[in-house]
Structure formats: C-alpha cells, structure tokens
C-alpha cells in the first residue's frame, strides 16, 4: 500500500478525533489556567498534554493540582483513574513485534482511548502498512490534543481580559460527543463482524 494512501486513511479516521480532542483539550487547558492556580499555565498545559496524553487526568486532576496534592497521591490517583490503559497493549503485542525501541515507545505513549480504538479497528492487514498507519494516526491525534490544551490555556492566560473563555466554550459545547460517537461506530462495526462470522 502506498504511503500517501495510508496517510489519507489515517487523516480521514483522525477527523472525529480532531473534533473531540480540540474541544476536550480546550476545556482542559481553560480549566488548568483558570482553576489550576499555576503560573505559566500554557507551558504546563503544553508539557502535560504532550507527555500524558490523557484527557481524564488533564481534566480531573486540575482541582487537585490547585490544592497542591503531593506527587505520590497524584501518582496513585492516575493509577486508579487510568488503569484501563494497562490492557490496551495486549491487542498490539503481535502487530508491533519488530518495531525499534524509540518508535515503539512513541506508539505506547499514544495508546489513548481513541487512538487504541482506531488502531484496533483498522482493516489494514499488512503489518508494515498498519505500523505506518498507527504512526501517522498517533502524530495527528497527538498534535490535536496538544493544540487544544495549549490553546485553551493561552486563551485564558493572555486573552482572558478581552475574550470571555466561557463564551468560546459555549460555542463548542457538546462537541465532546464526537468521542462517544467514535466508540459507538467502532463497536457497531465490531458487532457486525461477529454476526457475519457467526461466532
């Protein structure tokens, strides 16, 4: 399969995530800057979105950061809230067997709910092509998430006096449904497969 075709497939599949991640990321960034009680919120928003890539903790963790929760307690909370991530790799073990160390580390970092769901659901059978697909998809979705969070934090920090962040949030309100819709679509197709194979 040609590289360009794989790129187009990944780009098309990432569009629902574009809606979800920018909207959800924006909320997380606004929250961190407005309620996190931290200086340089855009910097921390950028770093945490790039290195955690988890909407759950970026949103649920903010009130605890504001209260200066200890790093140990934050670790335990992350462990409890995100334990599901420990199962995602099982579906990828075979497909990512001969991938170089750093490349594999990046793919592992990007095992988010949405990325995982798309990678598992991809119809690409050829292992090399699937790997390319996963890599491009990860880069795209990662950039959407970072852009959303950072933009949210910058909006509050720099433009807070001119633009009401709540007004911007109210326009995009409801866009987070795109994530639920993505899971519903993938689940529907998985059920259809089960019926077709009659197992």
């Amino acid at each position, binding site marked *: 399969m040609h590289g360009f075709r794989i790129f187009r497939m990944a780009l098309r*599949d990432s569009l629902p995530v574009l809606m979800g991640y920018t909207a959800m990321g924006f909320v997380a960034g606004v929250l961190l800057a407005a309620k996190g009680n931290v*200086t340089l919120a855009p910097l921390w928003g950028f*770093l945490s979105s790039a290195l955690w890539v988890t909407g759950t903790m970026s949103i649920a963790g903010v009130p605890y950061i504001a209260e200066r929760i200890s790093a140990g307690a934050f670790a335990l909370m*992350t462990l409890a809230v995100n334990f599901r991530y420990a199962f995602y790799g099982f579906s990828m073990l075979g497909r990512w067997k001969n991938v170089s160390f750093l490349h594999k580390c990046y793919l592992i970092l990007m095992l988010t709910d949405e990325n995982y769901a798309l990678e598992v659901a991809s119809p690409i059978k050829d292992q090399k092509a699937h790997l390319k697909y996963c890599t491009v998809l990860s880069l795209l979705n990662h950039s959407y998430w970072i852009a959303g969070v950072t933009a949210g934090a910058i909006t509050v920090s720099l433009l807070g006096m001119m633009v009401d962040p709540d007004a911007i949030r109210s326009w995009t309100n409801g866009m987070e449904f795109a994530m639920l*819709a993505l*899971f519903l679509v993938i*689940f529907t197709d998985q059920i259809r497969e089960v019926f077709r194979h009659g197992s």
Partner: protein
Amino acid sequence: MEADTTYMAGIVATGFAVNFALRALPFLFFGARRGPLPPWVEKFGAFVSPMIIGGLIVYSFAGVQWRTASPYIAATLTVGLQIWQRNPLLSIIAGTLAYMAAIRLNW
C-alpha cells in the same frame, strides 16, 4: 513562582511516568520474548478489544449530559446511520451535530 515551577515539573513528570508505565505494562511482560506469543495472549488481545470499547461507551456517557434525553437520541442516530450507510465520518458528524443541537434545545 520558583516553588510553583518545581511543583509543576514534579507533577508533569509523575503523570508521564504513571501513564506511560500503565501503557507499557503488556510490552514489559511479553515484549522481550522471542518466537510466537502464547496463544492465550493473542486470544486475550482479540477478546479484550470489544470489551474495552463497550466499557468506553458506558464511561463516555458520564462525560456528556447523560441525565437528559440528548445523548440517547444522538447515539441512536449515530448507530442507526452506521448500520445503514457504513460511513463512520458521516455517522459521527451527524450524531455530534444532533447532540449539539439537542442540548441547546434542552432536550
């Protein structure tokens, strides 16, 4: 300000370490192994994915206004369109727009 920076650097590093360790767990256990994976791991991987997606659906309802009719109307539209047209992007965009309209109408 200085204390703030140190604190946030620690929190960002902690979040990175825990999230990455969770995602890397299966690879730590089975990644270094040469030869084929044990059959139960392959089966578990295939079996676990619809379970995870199903769980994510339930979990995602907590992130929307699940006490109102809006997400259920939009979800029915999304699944219905997907069964009928088999076009993921169409189903997702139509479902999301329906949800955004429904919550603005206070359904």
